[in-house]
Structure formats: structure tokens, C-alpha cells
């Protein structure tokens, strides 16, 4: 799966591929074989080319991570494909006249809202599965659902409109 690190106004790609004992990571074009032991949720032991790192990752908000290491805390802004799509939607779901689109090709596993329903910021709308991962798409502001364009089991293309909103109430 591909992510983007936002740093110094650059988008640095980082690609992860799962391996039996960890990941192959391609960070800004450089390949790392990463042995990864998940000690507890958010706490990892990483072995990279023999170098050992213990890291604790904490996230206060989507896309923003504090990575605690022995020599210091690093702040990492990292976007998933989903985050990237949401960002490009000028405020994302919930904004006036906004809609939620599929961040990647996949299958709709669950529809959590119906037409005419009021939703609150952060409320789950649709769950899309892609690459064996389920992503719950959430409202980024308070709004009323106007149309639900998909049903459970539908296959969707990247960028397909899933839910549209009528009168935006607030947020976005």
C-alpha cells in the first residue's frame, strides 16, 4: 500500500508490502527490508539492516503521527490514498454540495447511512474494502445525506461518487 509523507512541501511516497516477518518498504525510491515485531498496539520493534529501533507511534488526528524514538520524537505527516482524496475534495464530505468518493478501486462492504439522514462530523458513511483493507469513510462535517449512489457488494472505481450531501449544516 502506498502512502505519502508530507514534508517541506514535498510529497514523499512510501510503499509498504507485507512480508512474513515484516515489510518491504520503498521510501522515496530507496528499498528497505524491515523486520517488524508488533509488541503492542502502536509499539514496534523494527530491524532494518541489522539496526534495531524501538518506536512508539501515536496519532492525535488522521494523517498526523508522533513517532517516539530513543533519541527524539519525530512528527510525521502521512497521508493514505483515502486522506489524499479527501484532501483534494475541498473540505471533503460534509462541505456544501460535497460528496464522498472512493479513494481507490474496491468493493463496498457496508453502507452506514440512508438518504435524508443527518450525519455528524466523524460519523461513518460507507466502508470500502480494497487490498484486503477496510476503510471507513467518514463525514468531515455535519451534513444531510442527499443521495447514496452505491449498495453493499458494489464494485467501485477509484474516484466514484458514493454519497452526496444536501444542505451542509456546518463544518467541512
Amino acid at each position, binding site marked *: *500500500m502506498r*502512502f505519502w*509523507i508530507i*514534508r517541506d512541501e514535498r510529497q*514523499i511516497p*512510501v510503499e*509498504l508490502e507485507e512480508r512474513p516477518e515484516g*515489510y518491504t*518498504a520503498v*521510501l522515496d525510491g*530507496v528499498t*528497505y527490508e*524491515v523486520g*517488524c515485531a*508488533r*509488541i*503492542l*498496539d*502502536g*509499539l*514496534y520493534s*523494527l530491524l*532494518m539492516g541489522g*539496526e534495531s*529501533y524501538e*518506536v*512508539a*507511534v*501515536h*496519532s*492525535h*488526528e*488522521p*494523517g*498526523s*503521527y*508522533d*513517532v*517516539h*524514538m*530513543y*533519541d*527524539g*520524537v*519525530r512528527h*510525521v505527516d*502521512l497521508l*493514505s490514498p*483515502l*486522506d489524499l482524496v479527501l484532501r483534494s475534495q475541498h473540505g471533503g464530505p460534509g462541505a456544501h454540495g460535497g460528496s464522498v468518493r472512493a479513494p481507490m478501486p474496491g468493493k463496498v462492504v457496508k453502507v452506514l447511512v440512508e438518504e435524508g439522514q443527518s450525519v455528524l462530523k466523524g460519523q461513518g458513511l460507507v*466502508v470500502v474494502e480494497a487490498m*484486503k*483493507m*477496510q*476503510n*471507513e469513510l*467518514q463525514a468531515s462535517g455535519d451534513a444531510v445525506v442527499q443521495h447514496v449512489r452505491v449498495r453493499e457488494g458494489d464494485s467501485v472505481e477509484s474516484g466514484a461518487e458514493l454519497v452526496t450531501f444536501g444542505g451542509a449544516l456546518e463544518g467541512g
Partner: protein
Amino acid sequence: MINKVLIANRGEIAVRILRALRDMGIASVAVYSEADRAARHVRLADEAYCIGPPPSAQSYLNMDAILSTAKACGAQAIHPGYGFLSENPLFAERCEKEGVIFVGPPAGAIRAMGEKTRARQLMAAAGVPVVPGTLVPLDSPEAAEEAAKTAGYPVMLKAAAGGGGKGMRLVESRAQIASAFRDASSEALKAFGDGSVYLERAVVRPRHIEMQILADGHGNCIYLGERECSIQRRHQKVVEEAPSPLVTPVMRASMGEVAVRAARAVGYQSAGTIEFLVDQSGEFFFMEMNTRLQVEHAVTEMVTGIDLVREQIRIAEGAPLSLRQEDVTIMGWAMECRIYAEDPQRNFLPCPGTIHAVRLPEGPNVRVDSAAFTRGEISMFYDPMVAKVITWGSGRDACAATMNRALMEFQIVGTHTNRDFLLAIVNHPAFRAGALDTGFIPRHFSGASMPVSSPVAAADIAAAIYAYESSRKGTSTAPPQSAPSAWRRAMMGDR
């Protein structure tokens, strides 16, 4: 004999006092505000009672509630810790009046040292060196020149009526004094409507060095060596050590004797600290006395092997000091770093919030005094200091190396702390060289040069792995704040 003590405090110091009590086989009583129901001092104590709502004025400063709790539960003594009621002479008086032992000095000693100008006069009268100068306004450039000659250059001219740097002039030599006097005087007149100016010896690049003393009710008073506390940010101590790299055995004895004289002059009992302003040549001047246990008392304990809280309790019981001056030896070196929940990247803004996970350092020569625990709240109502990391070494270099190791292991996840800033201080070449003065932090760490860890591949990849694993669970990449994670629960047990 005291067999039950109420601790009128919270946080790490309440925990520390409680531990001494348990070592001594004395029952401990915690008091807590409504914000502290889950706090560590409540859980570790033998008994605990709520004394009021979260604001300190209604709880930890509430004399009525604390005294009535002490009497109701049968505590013979109250240990005030530091801060809160510890230096309040009215509280010490009320304890005495109501038949509860105040673990600290007599009210009179607190009062005498509490009024800073009066304390200065008292100390000068007792032969304790104070910064030389005049406290009466000077009436002419000639009088200024005369006073400067007595005080010794460089001198500082100061407006009698005000502060904030207005009407202040640093004068390096006799050639400048007359014009500096006229400038300072006219500036003071403009700023405060009063041109009166007085003069003091200027202490250039001062160091803050303090002397720990112990005094009992039988006329015994000893000193336990100094602590250097020059690493300060806005008058708040950040890193302390004992001994001081500046102090020689001869200077220690001389400072110690002066400190004992100062304590005797006010009829002091219990543990106390005399703070000195020290110039780079080692000449020292009385600044003030802290009539309580200090935050940084642990470094003295580490190099002397003396439990200061135990001594305080024994003195409060009426026992004589358990040791004489010649029994006190300084062994090795100790340092303390204060961990604050604050963000050095945002002008040290305090960061109250929930601690997601804590990992405390372990291993040889490391002591941690802390009340932080996983899932604990850093309350907006109280001080943002969450822990003290204390290390010992056979010498200063070894001690600093161990401090570096301990800080690396120290981790609080979920809120910002000054840990990385402390690491940068402890590893700074000027710190390692012992080149300390109270201007150390502003000189070496101005806002623009706050240390930021440079990006490393492992951190970027770790963030990506975390985001990936979170998304696989079908949740958004940010875990809900309320969900306790396994690592929150399991890491370091319940600390």
C-alpha cells in the same frame, strides 16, 4: 512517636513522602481534590480523603479541610511537601494551635525568611554575605562613585521606584559612572516620576548554587552540601546537580558554615535550603531561604545517602539529628532532570491531557520520582511537572552519561514533554564542560534553535506501518481517544 502522617500535597512529592513513611513503618494519609481521585498518591496511601473541588484554593490550599481531615483520621502530623501550604506561616501556626505537628520549620522562621527585604537585613546582621550595595537612594554622581568603589565594579544602577529594566545601567568602570548615573536617574524619572537610583554589585553570569541544611530542636544544625541549579528557564529550574562543578571543598565548607549561620539566625528547624547567587570566581551572596523540602532534594540524597524526608519526620518527632557534620560525606555525582508536560516547539506551552503510555527508565544508578501513569490525566489545574529523572555516577561525566541513557529510555506518549530538550541540554558541550550560569538556556537555546530531531527512515516507515495496520482494522488511521490500547494498559504495568 508519630505513627500516622497526612500528606497535604499531590503529584510526585506526595508519592515521595509516602514512600519515606512506608520505609519508616508510619501510616500515610493522602488527601486529594476531585480531579485527583485516580492519582497515584491516593492509590499508594494507606488512607485517602477528598478535600474539595479541583481548584487548589478549594482543596490543596484549604486549611480547614486539611486540618479537620487530619484530626478526624487521627494523623499526628502533616507534611506539606513543597508549594501549596508549605511556606505559609499561617498554616504552620494553625497546626500548632490545633495540636497537629507541622513537618517543617516554626512559623516564625517561615515568616522571617518570607519577607525578602527583611530577610536580607536579617542576614546581613547575622554576617551572611548579601550582594554589596546601597539600599538608600544616591543623591549625586559623586555619591554613586563612592558607593561603587565600596561595592566593587562592575556595578548595577537600579531605579528605586521600579523594575523592568527601566532606569537600570550596568557600569563596568569608574570612567562611566557619572554619566551612567545621570542617564539612569533621568530615565527613572521619566518612567516612574521618581529619579531615585541605588546601586548594587553586578553579578555577571551568575550561578545559582544552594546549600541544603538540616536543623533539629536541640540546637544542632548541619549542612549536606550544595546543589547547582543554574540551568533555568524563566526562573524555573530545569536541571540540577550535586555537587556543583564550581565548588571546591574549601568553598563548600565556607558556604555550608554561612548557611548554618543563616538558619540559626531565624531559629530554623527541619530541612531547609539557602540559595546563593555565585559569581564565576566563586564569591557567593545570600539570595533567599526556601523553608521547605525542595523539588531537587533528591540529588542531595543520592550523593549523601541521607533520606531528607525521614530526617524531617524525625526532627518533627523531637528527635535529635541522626548524624553530625563530620558524618556527612559527598560521594560521586547526581543530576536531576525535570520532565514537564509542555511543548518546547511552541514556546513551552503547557500540555495538559491524557497520558497514553509511560515508560520509565530503569537500570543502574537511576531513580525516578513520578506520579505519572498510563491513562493518567495531566490536569490543567496543577503544575505541569510530571516526573523527575535522577541519576548517579562516580563522577560528573559518568552521571551525565547515565542521565543521557535514562532520558533516552524515558517516554511519555500522548502529550508533549520537554524530554528532547533535556536531552539536548545534557548533551550540550557547554553543559558537559560545566560552564554553567543562569543565562545558559537563553544563550544556547533561543527559540529559533530549539532542537528538532531530523527525519529518519525508521520513523517514516514506522508511521506508515502504523497507518497501514490501523486501516486494516477497518478504522480510520487515528484511534479513538477513548479506546485504551493494549500497550497503554500493559506498558510498565500501571505506571
